[in-house]
């Protein structure tokens, strides 16, 4: 996997580093993201940004184009999941994490964020 430049925005930088760290420590996760080929738009109450997975590369950017999955979530909810005050499934069921596009790819999203946020 080619390592792109780090993003300069605070959310993108965090997500980028987290994906990088988890791919370094988990061969399974690395294999998973290498085959992901999705453009995930994270729409937060701070701002929107995209995680693009393509051909074993990934990029985190604020340039929004052709999302295949759109997730809407507040940063507060994000922190709650990280702090284990709630779970992704619970957030989803309570409508605090919403799919605006790509609901059929729920499993992929669950695996991706399950690893990033765990």
């Amino acid at each position: 996997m080619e390592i792109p430049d780090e993003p300069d925005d605070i959310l993108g930088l965090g997500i980028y580093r987290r994906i990088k760290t988890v791919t370094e420590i988990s061969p399974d996760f690395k294999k998973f993201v290498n085959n992901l080929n999705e453009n995930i738009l994270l729409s937060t109450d701070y701002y929107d940004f995209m995680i693009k997975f393509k051909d074993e590369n990934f990029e985190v950017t604020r340039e929004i184009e052709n999302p295949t999955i759109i997730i809407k979530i507040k940063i507060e909810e994000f922190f709650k999941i990280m702090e284990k005050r709630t779970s992704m499934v619970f957030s989803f069921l309570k409508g605090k994490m919403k799919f605006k596009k790509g609901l059929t790819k729920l499993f992929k999203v669950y695996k991706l964020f399950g690893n990033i946020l765990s």
Partner: protein
Amino acid sequence: MKKLVGCDKLLESSEKHDIIKESLIKIVGEQWYSDFPEELLIYSYDMTENDPSLPEFVVMPRTSEEIQKILKFANETKTPVVPFISGNNVGGLTIPLKGGIVVDLKRMDSILHFNEDDMYVIIEPGVTFGHLHAFLEKTNYRYCYPFAPPFTSVIANALLDGLNNLSLRHGSMNEWINGIEAILPNGDLVKIGTCCAWGDNYDLWWSRNPMPDLLGLFTSWQGMTGIVTKMAVQVWPRRPIRDWRIVLSFNVEETYKFVKTLTHLEILNDILFMSIETVKMIAGVPYGKAKYLEGEPRWVCLLDFSANTKLEYEAKLDMINTAFKKLKEVDPKANMTNLDVMEKFYGKKVGDIKNLPVTIGPMLEYGGLTWMGTYMTTKTEAVVNGIKTAFDLIDKYRFEKCLYSRSMKGHHYFAFRFLLRFSKLQEGETERMQKLQEELFNSLFELGAFPYKTPARFAKQILKRADPNWVNLLKTIKSTIDPNGIMNPGRWGLE
């Protein structure tokens, strides 16, 4: 690099040079003396934008007696002396403005005594924050740590009125000094504090009260009145539970009010109020790229607290949560999380805030680091106005807006500072930084911000603006203690 002051002097006075060399070698031994240009160069500059200037000699004494001899000799020959430990003061304070002898105190690195009952440690000047931390880890006591690298000196920072992660509780570092041993410019050895009565008994260095407090003859004097050779510094019981919270917010006034509310509850060890750029810098965003971007939280507060029991911890957390809820009512997108979450996202560099003293690499990687570091009033208008003024100026000169501020002594005053990275390798950048610093100083001084670890060029301007009677008293004290003006000449705008 600019032409080094001191070079001409070195060539002109070779006879005097030889005499001084011989005498210094006699005192410290050949091994601990140098006048090699390569070694002198190291002592001629620091990381800041301050102009370099060469010393003529460097010595590394080991004992108070050797220092007595060095100062006596320097006084007789009217040779300038600059005390030095690691030169990390971020103010150009060890640059030998008038050449002379640099007295490097690194070899005096013993922790001489630990009095557990009265809770203090007696140390020598070369003892670093790293040393002291390692020593105290084996006890139930703690000291306090600045954001500085672990190889910097505790004594130097205490003498400079430094600030650190217990300053919210206890104020600046000079307030925790019980007593000192110091060598005056004429070579006399003096003891200040209760040790004036029982100096040889390390168990009786327990306070500087009740007697006229002469410590002020040495604190914030930047080595202009003598060399401190021993210091008793207070330590405190370490609490078993310690935790941190990070608050991200958007509204400057409301965030500052939140800071104030928390300080008045008296439950925290420390509270930092930073801009997002500072967090990016700490996280390792390269120089020039630590910028605020649309939509990001603008401010970040770091709350450090500790407790003896789970119950105390929960009560404190409850108070923090309540204060945060109030902030959220007026700054709805504000969020709070813990440091572990931040560490997970941004890596060890951010998590290391828990492990002070550490070297915050991204601050030092680019060859240039300086600050506009001040102590100022806590008044909301002054702080908010100060941030706006400073940000406009930093923008004008195209540097990064890294605010790193802290409430001091229960919010009796405020440490208001901007960390400024720059690159010395880039043509014109040092000069640009000098101009920015000049403007920052002028604007912030007007708002009631007094630069600490005051660089010489600001000190000169302060002397022009300060009460003339204060200036006269300062000059009288200096000329009484150091009539030949040998100690770190040029500092504080005094020759």
